[in-house]
C-alpha cells in the first residue's frame, strides 16, 4: 500500500470512530428531548399532590406513586446500606485474603444478575410465604440490587484513604476496629455517602423487580405490609394503556424519574472527582 493510501485509510477509520460517538449520542439527545418535551408540559402541581383518577376522568396525578417510590428506596437503603458498607470496609481492610476475593467475586455476580430474577427471588422469600404483595418485598428486591454497588464503591473509596492515617492510628496503639471507626470511616465518609447515592440512582429507575413484589396500588398507602404504588410501575401501567391522558401522565412520570436520576448521578460524580483530588498524593 502506498503511503498516501495508508493515510487515507487512517483518516477514514478515524472519521468512522467519530461517527460512532455521534451514533450513540444521537439517541441520547433524542430520548432526552422527547422526555423533556412531552414530560415537562404534562407536569403540574396536581401531578405531585393528586391521586390517580379513574379511567375517563382527566387530571389526577402520581402523588401516591412518588411517596411510594421514596418509601421503597428508604426500605431498600435500610437493608442494603449496613450490609453493603460493612462488607465494603471488610474488603478494603483485608484486601488480599482469599475470603475477600471470593466475596468480591460474589458481589460482581450479584451485580450482573438481571433485576427481574432478583424480583423472583424476593417474591419467593417475601411474598409467597405471606401470600401478599407488599412494600417490604419491593424494598427487599431493590435492596438486593443496591448491595453490590454499595460494596464496590465503599471498598474503592475506603482504599483511597491514605495508608498513613491507618498506620498512624495503629502505631498509637489503637485496635483495628478503633482505627477503622474513629479514623478511616470518618475520613472515607463522604465517599461512602457517594456510593449510597450512586446505588440509589441505580435502583430509583427499576421497574421489573417491583412488578410482583410491591405490585401497584391505586390508593394512598404508606403501610409497608401492603402493596404500594411506585413511579416506575405507574409509568409502565400508563404507557401500555390505551388512553391519551394516561400517556401524558406516563411522560410526566418519566420526566420526573430522569430528573431525579440525573441530579443524583451528577452530584455523585462531582463528589467523586472532589474526593479524588483531595486524596491525590
Amino acid at each position: 500500500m502506498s503511503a498516501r493510501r495508508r493515510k487515507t485509510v487512517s483518516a477514514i477509520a478515524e472519521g468512522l470512530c467519530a461517527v460512532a460517538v455521534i451514533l450513540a449520542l444521537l439517541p441520547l439527545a433524542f430520548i432526552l428531548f422527547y422526555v423533556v418535551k412531552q414530560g415537562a408540559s404534562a407536569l403540574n402541581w396536581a401531578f405531585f399532590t393528586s391521586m390517580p383518577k379513574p379511567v375517563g376522568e382527566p387530571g389526577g396525578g402520581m402523588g401516591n406513586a412518588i411517596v411510594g417510590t421514596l418509601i421503597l428506596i428508604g426500605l431498600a437503603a435500610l437493608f442494603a446500606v449496613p450490609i453493603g458498607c460493612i462488607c465494603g470496609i471488610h474488603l478494603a481492610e483485608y484486601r488480599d485474603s482469599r475470603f475477600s476475593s471470593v466475596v468480591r467475586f460474589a458481589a460482581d455476580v450479584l451485580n450482573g444478575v438481571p433485576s427481574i430474577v432478583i424480583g423472583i427471588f424476593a417474591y419467593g422469600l417475601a411474598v409467597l410465604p405471606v401470600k401478599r404483595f407488599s412494600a417490604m418485598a419491593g424494598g427487599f428486591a431493590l435492596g438486593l440490587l443496591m448491595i453490590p454497588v454499595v460494596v464496590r464503591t465503599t471498598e474503592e473509596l475506603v482504599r483511597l484513604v491514605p495508608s498513613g492515617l491507618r498506620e498512624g492510628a495503629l502505631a498509637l496503639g489503637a485496635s483495628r476496629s478503633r482505627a477503622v471507626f474513629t479514623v478511616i470511616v470518618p475520613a472515607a465518609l463522604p465517599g461512602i455517602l457517594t456510593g449510597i447515592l450512586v446505588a440509589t440512582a441505580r435502583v430509583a429507575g427499576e421497574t421489573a423487580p417491583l412488578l410482583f413484589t410491591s405490585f401497584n396500588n391505586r390508593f394512598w398507602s404508606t403501610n409497608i405490609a401492603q402493596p404500594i404504588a411506585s413511579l416506575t410501575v405507574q409509568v409502565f401501567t400508563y404507557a401500555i394503556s390505551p388512553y391519551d391522558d394516561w400517556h401524558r401522565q406516563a411522560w410526566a412520570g418519566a420526566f420526573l424519574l430522569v430528573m431525579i436520576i440525573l441530579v443524583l448521578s451528577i452530584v455523585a460524580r462531582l463528589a467523586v472527582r472532589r474526593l479524588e483530588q483531595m486524596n491525590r498524593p
Partner: protein
Amino acid sequence: MRRSADDRLFRLTTGAFAAMVLVIVVGIGIELTRQSMLSIQKFGWSFWTGRTWDPVAGEFGALPFIWGTLYSSLLALLLSAPIALGIAIFISELSPRFLRQPLAYLTDLLAAIPSIVYGLWGIFVLVPIVRKLELLTPEPLRRLPLFHGPPLGVGMGTAALILAVMVVPFSSSVAREILKNVPSAQREAAYALGATRWEAIKVAIGYGKTGIIGAIMLGLGRALGETMAVTMVIGNNPQVSLSLFTPQYTMAAVIANEFTEAADELYLHALIEIGLLLFVITIVVNLASRLLIWSTKKRAAELVVLASPATKEEIAA
C-alpha cells in the same frame, strides 16, 4: 492479648456481613431451583425444546423465549459492538483532551436512563418510525426471511435496536479502560516503524483484543436480562422466527408479563424455571467476560512492572 482478640472479633463481625453477599448469591440459585421443581420434574429437557406455551392446557415449552432472548441480544451486539469500540477508540486515542471527560460522561449517561424510559420512548417514538421504515421496504426484500411479516413497528428489529443503544455504554466504558491500560510502548513502537495513527491504534486493539471481547460480552450479559424496554416493544408473541418484522417474546419479558397471572402452581414454576435459566446464562456470560477483562489487565500490569518506573506512573495517571 486484648488487642489481638479485639482484632479477631472485628474481622469476624465484618466478615459475617461480607458473607451475606455470598449467601444471597447462593440463595438465589437454591431458591429458584426449589421454586421451579414442579416444572423441572414434569417436563425435564422437553421444557427447553418445546414450542407450545399453553398455560390453560398446562403445556409449557420455553424454546420461543430462549430463541427471542438469544436472537435479540445477538442482533443488539452486532449493532452495539462496532459503535462501542468506535467510541472507546475515539475517547481514548483520538479525542482532544478537553473533550474526553464530557464525552465519557455523556456516553455513560446512556446507562443511567431507566429501562422504563427507554420503553416509553420506544412505544411512542421509535415504533412509529420503524413502522414507516418497514412500509418502505421494497417488495423483493420483503420476501427474504429476515424481512418477512406484517409492518407492525413492534417486533424483533425494534427490540434489538433499543437493546443496542442500552448496552453501548457498558461495552464502551470497559473497552475504554482496556485501551487506556495498553502500554504506550506498543503504540510508540508502531509509530517508530512509520505507522499511521490508525495502524498504531490497530496495534493497541490487537494488544487488548481479549479484554475488548470481554467488554462486548459484558454488554451481552446486560442485553440478555434486559426486561422493561424489550417487553414494551417486542410484541410479546412466542414464536421462533428469523424475521425482524415479527413480534416475538423473550425470557425476561414473559416473566414480567405473566408472573402475576400465573394462577396455578405449575404455571408459576414454569416461569421461575425460565428465570433460573436466565440466571445461569447471565452468570456464565458475566464470568467469561470478567475473566477476559481481568487477564488482559493483568498482562498489561505485568508488562508495566518490567518497563521503566516512568511508564508505570504514566499509566497510573
